[in-house]
């Protein structure tokens, strides 16, 4: 199954999680749905608290990277039916979600392992950068 949306402006909403599961877990042969959401933490660095993260990406390369990750997962996990990756671009505040991964499979073992592996590949392969914006409006690239 092809999921065209992989970038979203600002935060991934809670409603979007339910909607994505609803769009992916169609049919009656998928027994397991594994979801990971990454949320911006109000970490403290050098006495300053993170208020938001501003994400930027190399969009043309990102599209290819998402397709590449999906191909790796489908090849590695024969029971997996769908893989969706949605990443935020722009500003996401602390306490908001910036990454959503949804994997559906026939059974739970492959759904969960494939979801974990997808998240690892997202961290490693997606051309995305983040700038922590602190409460005092200073920033730091991480």
């Amino acid at each position: 199954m092809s999921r065209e949306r992989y970038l979203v402006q600002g935060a991934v909403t809670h409603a979007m999680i339910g909607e994505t599961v609803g769009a992916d877990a169609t049919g009656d042969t998928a027994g397991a749905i594994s979801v990971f959401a990454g949320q911006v933490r109000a970490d403290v660095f050098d006495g300053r608290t993170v208020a938001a993260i501003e994400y930027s990406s190399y969009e043309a390369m990102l599209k290819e990277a998402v397709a590449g990750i999906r191909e790796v997962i489908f090849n590695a996990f024969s029971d997996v039916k769908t893989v969706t990756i949605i990443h935020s671009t722009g500003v996401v505040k602390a306490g908001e979600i910036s990454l959503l991964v949804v994997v559906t499979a026939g059974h739970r073992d492959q759904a969960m392992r494939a979801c974990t592996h997808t998240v690892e590949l997202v961290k490693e392969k997606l051309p995305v950068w983040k700038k922590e914006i602190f409460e005092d409006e200073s920033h730091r690239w991480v």
Partner: protein
Amino acid sequence: MSVRVLFFGFLAERAGAPEKRYEAVTDTNALEAMVAGEIEGLQEYSYIVSVNRQAIRGNTPLNDGDEVAFLPPFAGG
């Protein structure tokens, strides 16, 4: 000949612009030398270079219209 050069993450900030155009640059080594003249301390940063969205290793010839990018370590998620 002319190549389009994109800068991402903190390198966009250091370069002063997310995108520049360089003329008469025949390979990536020559391009990196030109960019190093504009971004102080470039050699000390960790980054990779891509040509037409493919990461390269070592010196790579450039052609008119190529899209080169300077990519700091990915930090998605």
